[in-house]
């Protein structure tokens, strides 16, 4: 991450801006079924904290502290994704490492709501993303390099 950000920094104009979009490392997703009668919240999806994302955040913060970038903003936004089948929902859960698991009791409620939803029902997952905005800063001049 540090090498990537340094490479990007070199390619930016002075005062150029970086937007770092990541899944939110700590957010607990939730699942719901949406059908013609509305949205039925079912419960959380359990996940481990994403260590790779945390490491990326730490690397980026280190570059800010080192004066390579200034942090302009840190945003979080929640959003929903939707799939049309249980198989697609399970495939999505399994695409994460480690796999996202359903909290105790959520699976039976999901199956019941899904069956009751009928044709056109969708399974929604609520997720959160983060966006960090960084502005390039010039190289710090050491005291030794300054003109007398």
């Amino acid at each position, binding site marked *: 991450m540090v090498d*990537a950000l340094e490479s990007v920094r070199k390619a930016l104009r002075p005062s*150029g801006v970086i937007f770092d*979009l*990541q899944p939110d490392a700590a957010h607990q997703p939730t699942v719901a079924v949406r059908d013609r009668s509305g949205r039925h919240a079912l419960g959380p999806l359990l996940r481990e904290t994403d260590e790779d994302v945390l490491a990326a955040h730490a690397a980026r913060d280190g570059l800010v502290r080192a004066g390579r970038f200034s942090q302009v*903003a840190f945003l979080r*936004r929640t959003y929903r994704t*939707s*799939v049309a089948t249980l198989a697609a929902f399970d495939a999505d859960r399994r*695409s994460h490492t480690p796999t996202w698991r359903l909290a105790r009791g959520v699976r039976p409620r999901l199956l019941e709501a899904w069956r009751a939803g009928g044709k056109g029902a969708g399974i929604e997952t609520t997720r959160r993303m983060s*966006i960090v905005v960084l502005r390039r800063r010039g190289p710090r001049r050491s005291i030794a390099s300054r003109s007398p």
Partner: protein
Amino acid sequence: MNRDRTRRADGEVWTNTSLGWFRERLGPPGTGGYPPPGLELRLIERYVPLAGRDVLEVGCGDGRLTFQYAARARSVVALDANADEIERAREMARRGGFRNVRFLARAVQAGRLPGGPFDVALLTWSL
């Protein structure tokens, strides 16, 4: 450049090609685990409008985000280490007539980047 642009009610400018691509490839908005089309750009453009900018995108995949803003950027260099994804993005760019976009299968750290310097860099769901 694309002549078949449309402006949505919320002010987002899309090409017919990219709209069709999203419908065909990703299904309804919000599928695939990524935010629905438009959300990321609305947040980004609160800070820097991408119109007329030279943009570097790192981790572009098959151009999911790229094609949402490419029509209004001045130039785009979009990178991903996955050569198959980049080939799909190139094919889409050809079909859509995006002449201002270069998709490159490489890591950002792998030497000097062509097309710079850039006004904006987007690190899109890449670590």
